[in-house]
């Protein structure tokens, strides 16, 4: 190991950081070629789970192994850093898609013409008609497709598999050989006499066992290569590191890790296996990584076999590994709704342990230091701050927030544990849970909690105001709930809006349930299933009721925009009669052209959400509660149900694009509000008023809310400002807040970054549940970030 200063990266980490920072995302066709060859030969010969597991084995056997010059933690999904495979079994990119990916300005993935030709020749013809995407689109009803295309909602599983998974602590206690034993006894105990599912279970368990072999083989190939490299290595220090790498890879993941280093490498192999097997949304997540690593760290520090600097170096190596793993490319609407290289591995730091005690350890502080020093896109990170969390940890987190990297965000375990328990988790499972991806909660290591897509709530109001017609496309997408000019009261309008909400939610649920089955049948995740209780015990796949808990989420976007629009209609049309409905509709149709005075009146004379004003806040509460009622309890196909989630990621920008003007004065095409944040510029009474408004929502009913707050650096200059920020967070959490995150930037910096992007390459901005490079965002998203209210307080 290299020596470090107490603070700051050592030379190894500086080099690795430079490499990950500068590597260009590219497409690798290796996985697709191995898979296509394998499928051509074997499809039909095996039951599907076994076929999937053998396919995974084949990839692990043949894929290029990469061990970089300075690396201590090893393994890449592609042949080299930021080289991303494709998953033709889910979505087979067309030649046109590949050209677009290779040439588009943002989120570009380079690919050579030669590879495109090979893809055209060897991959595309085979998968035609066989992909998940085609299966899905061949089935969905016309009205669903229309609503999808007009931007009423999105569909997550159209290009990627259900994921959003985080692990609990079991992988640090059991190796894959232990799991194989468990699988073997499961197989031996199958009751073919009485259990009609015994055969299905036999297939699934066999597939799981093969998946263990695949990952062990993959690790051994790394060990072999490291040994070989060590023999050829001239630098004795590196040669010894390589021998150590080989030793680690021969031990994990076959066995449970014994050391801090092995523990990190163990997780990393599982992470890689999961994202190689399939392309699940939100990659993979170690969950409470600091809590899992702390026992290893503490033991080795006590024994003197590990120093703090070494532990930090290994942690940095791990962070860089995650950053090397750019999200697989999306195309079409899905690229518009979530155009980012970020693959949403969101680390949970601090929080509480399964027994309810404080989860903060020295490893938590090491992670905060690494976040601050590396300053890279991935992994995402969040500090978890409950009433038991020491103030010094919150302070340390806030000091990193002050740097303006966009990380960490802040979660409230006291509330999300309640959310999980409300959904039916046991106390222990709830406490071992947390937030992954962006802000969604799940029971780590025990749950499939699947996000299915965003619902464009303001657009539902837009369609209501046009009696079921989408005014942008002119298509009839909703129900005929009446001409709004005939509504006698606000309540009539609201009732119509609610009818439309139920209509679109039900439409989405039906198709989601169909897609659920498609994955259960055709794309079982037999490797991932190993790590989620109780898949092995039940002999069932992660996608097919194997997990102890099975949640399906619909994410509702634009609470601020829809609330403010309803406020405007209620106040100006129905109460004050400032304008009549016809005038309002006319203004929306013409995008307020020639009606700036009217628009300004609305903007300045309407109670808006985010100002601790009950007029607006009670409407927000009502909409939120009604969304909950519309979604909560709708059955999924796994014997459980749908829950409400209030996430938007970057989808609020896409949703805004497909909408006309709204009654809150928002112009056509502009972004709608994100998550549960107030509309841009609507909150004019400072952050304490914002969090009070948010505190009126009963957030325990959701599976996560999202509050973005822009803070100018000027508000965080002094030590005492940090204390006040800590108090603001604690106050919000005392009110039942689930999550808050801060963008510490000034507008001037952002404008400067727009003008001179090359000078601001490392400008990280918190977007939604994650951070992104400002320069990687499109102009709309940049404008959106700038437009967010600046909480100036001087």
């Amino acid at each position, binding site marked *: 190991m290299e020596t470090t200063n107490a603070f700051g990266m050592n030379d190894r980490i500086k080099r690795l950081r430079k490499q990950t920072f500068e590597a260009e995302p590219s497409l690798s066709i290796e996985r697709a070629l191995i898979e296509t060859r394998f499928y051509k030969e074997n499809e039909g010969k095996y039951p599907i789970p076994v076929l999937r597991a053998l396919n995974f084995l084949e990839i692990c056997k043949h894929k290029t192994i990469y061990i970089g010059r300075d690396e201590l933690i090893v393994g890449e999904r592609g042949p080299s850093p930021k080289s991303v495979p494709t998953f033709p079994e889910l979505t087979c990119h067309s030649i046109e898609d590949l050209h677009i990916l290779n040439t588009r300005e943002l989120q570009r993935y380079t690919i050579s013409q030669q590879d495109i030709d090979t893809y055209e020749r060897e991959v595309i013809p085979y998968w035609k008609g066989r992909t998940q995407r085609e299966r899905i689109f061949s089935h969905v009803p016309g009205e669903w497709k229309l609503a999808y295309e007009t931007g009423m909602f999105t569909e997550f599983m159209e290009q990627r598999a259900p994921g959003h998974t985080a692990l609990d602590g079991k992988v640090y206690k059991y190796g894959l050989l232990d799991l194989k034993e468990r699988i073997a006894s499961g197989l031996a105990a199958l009751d073919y006499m009485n259990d009609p599912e015994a055969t299905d279970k036999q297939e699934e368990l066999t597939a799981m066992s093969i998946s263990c072999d695949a990952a062990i083989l993959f690790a051994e190939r790394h060990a072999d290569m490291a040994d070989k490299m060590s023999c050829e290595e001239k630098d004795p220090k590196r040669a010894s590191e390589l021998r150590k790498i080989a030793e680690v890879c021969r031990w994990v993941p076959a066995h449970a890790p014994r050391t801090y280093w092995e523990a990190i490498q163990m997780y990393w192999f599982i992470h890689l296996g999961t994202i190689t097997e399939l392309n699940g949304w939100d990659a993979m997540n170690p969950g409470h990584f600091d809590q899992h690593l702390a026992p290893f760290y503490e033991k080795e520090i006590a024994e003197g076999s590990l120093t703090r600097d070494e532990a930090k170096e290994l942690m940095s190596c791990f962070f860089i590994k995650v950053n090397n793993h750019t999200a697989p490319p999306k195309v079409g609407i899905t690229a518009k709704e979530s155009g980012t290289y970020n693959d949403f591995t969101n680390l949970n730091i601090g929080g509480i342990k399964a027994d309810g005690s404080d989860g903060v350890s020295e490893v938590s502080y090491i992670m905060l230091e690494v976040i601050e020093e590396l300053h890279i896109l991935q992994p995402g990170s969040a500090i978890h701050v409950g009433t038991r969390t020491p103030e010094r940890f919150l302070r340390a987190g806030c000091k990193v927030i002050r740097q303006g990297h966009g990380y960490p965000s802040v979660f409230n375990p006291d509330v999300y544990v309640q959310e999980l328990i409300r959904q039916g988790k046991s106390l222990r499972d709830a406490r071992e849970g947390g937030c992954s991806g962006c802000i969604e909660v799940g029971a780590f290591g025990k749950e499939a909690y699947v996000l299915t897509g965003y619902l464009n709530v303001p657009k539902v109001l837009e369609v209501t105001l046009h009696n079921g017609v989408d005014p942008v496309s002119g298509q009839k997408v909703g129900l005929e709930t009446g001409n709004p000019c005939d509504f006698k009261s606000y309540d009539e309008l609201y009732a119509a809006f609610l009818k439309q909400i139920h209509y679109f939610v039900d439409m989405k649920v039906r198709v989601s349930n169909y897609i659920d089955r498609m994955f259960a049948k055709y794309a079982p995740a037999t490797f991932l299933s190993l790590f989620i209780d109780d898949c092995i015990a039940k002999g069932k796949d992660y996608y097919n009721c194997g997990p102890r808990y099975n949640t399906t989420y619909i994410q509702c976007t634009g609470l601020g925009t829809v609330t403010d629009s309803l406020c405007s209609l209620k106040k100006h049309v129905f109460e004050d009669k400032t304008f009549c409905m016809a005038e309002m509709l006319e203004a929306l149709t013409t995008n307020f052209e020639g009606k*700036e*005075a*009217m*628009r*300004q*009146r609305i903007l*300045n*004379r309407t109670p808006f959400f985010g100002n*601790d004003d009950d007029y607006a806040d009670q409407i927000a509460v009502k909409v939120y509660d009604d969304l909950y009622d519309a979604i909560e309890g709708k059955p999924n196909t796994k014997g459980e149900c749908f829950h409400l989630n209030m996430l938007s990621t970057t989808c609020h920008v896409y949703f805004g694009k497909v909408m006309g003007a709204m009654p809150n004065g928002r112009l056509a095409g502009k972004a709608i509000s994100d998550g549960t944040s107030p509309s841009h510029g609507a909150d004019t*009474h*400072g*952050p*304490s*008023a914002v969090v*009070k408004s948010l505190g009126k929502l009963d957030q325990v009913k959701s599976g996560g809310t999202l509050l973005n707050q822009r803070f100018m650096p000027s*508000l965080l*200059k*002094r030590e*005492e*400002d940090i*204390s*006040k920020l800590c*108090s*603001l967070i*604690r*106050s919000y959490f*005392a*009110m039942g807040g689930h999550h808050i995150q801060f963008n510490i930037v000034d507008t001037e910096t952002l404008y400067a970054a727009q003008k001179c992007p090359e000078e601001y390459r490392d400008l990280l901005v918190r977007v939604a549940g994650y951070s992104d490079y400002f320069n990687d965002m499109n102009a709309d998203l940049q404008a959106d970030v700038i437009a967010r209210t600046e*909480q100036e*307080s*001087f």
Partner: protein
Amino acid sequence: MLVFDIKRYAINDGPGIRITIFMKGCPLSCVWCHNPEGISGQREKLYTKQKCLGCGACVDACPGHALRLTSEGVSSDVSLCTVCGKCADVCPSLAMEISGKEYTADELMKEIRKEILFMDCSEGGVTFCGGEPLMHPDFLLELLQRCGKEGIHRAVDTTLYARPELVRQVMEHTDLFLIDLKLMDSFWHKKYCGVPNELILSNLRMVADAGKEFIIRIPLIEGINTDEDNIRQSASFLASLPQHLKVVNLLPYHDIGKNKHEKLGSVYNPDQFPMSTPSENLQQKCVEIFHSYGINAKIGG
């Protein structure tokens, strides 16, 4: 009681997260004042040209025909304006605003209570500021007493230009004073702030003698009070107070008030005075002088 602003998440007006109530009316008229709308005790009309759409709604609404739409925006005939506020009521873009909103003590208590959780969490409270809150003794005392009963930490940001009797009364119900020390020479104090400073200094000594907690803030305005003489006199005066000062906050001047003077349409123009932001060097020099008197001075605060 006329209030011209209520600021939540106020983090520069005393300890913790505070709510700051800005009361209208001040006996001083400092030329650098960055809240000039706090000087007059009356409602005032503010006009922001950049926000004006030129729709003319205000012109039509004005019962006294005081307004005229010109190519330069809306012009106002002060002699005809009764500050009735009808123009602001109809203005869609908030270009026309009335500074000064009437509040009862009950209404203000309601506003203050909105921030209770943040105060409790941060050991913050309420700050009464102005203008000059001591211009409204009955009202201020009622609020201070009511906050005291509810256990809300009370800060009063004051010029101390008030009858000693009143200061003594307020002192009984105040947890912390925020006091501006502007100029030590009474002649110049009168020239730049409109009143002499003997009363202020003796009141300050009284507050200190009583063992009350207070924070001194000194605006640093080059051309007005950053000369060595004034800084030395200020430091020597503060050093002579019985109570040991934890810290003196030196606040470098910024011309943010200018914009507000434009809005008020004040005849009075701060540009006629040679005021500027002191250089970092000069700021540092002032800090050192305070240090030489054993006083811990800090830039900002």
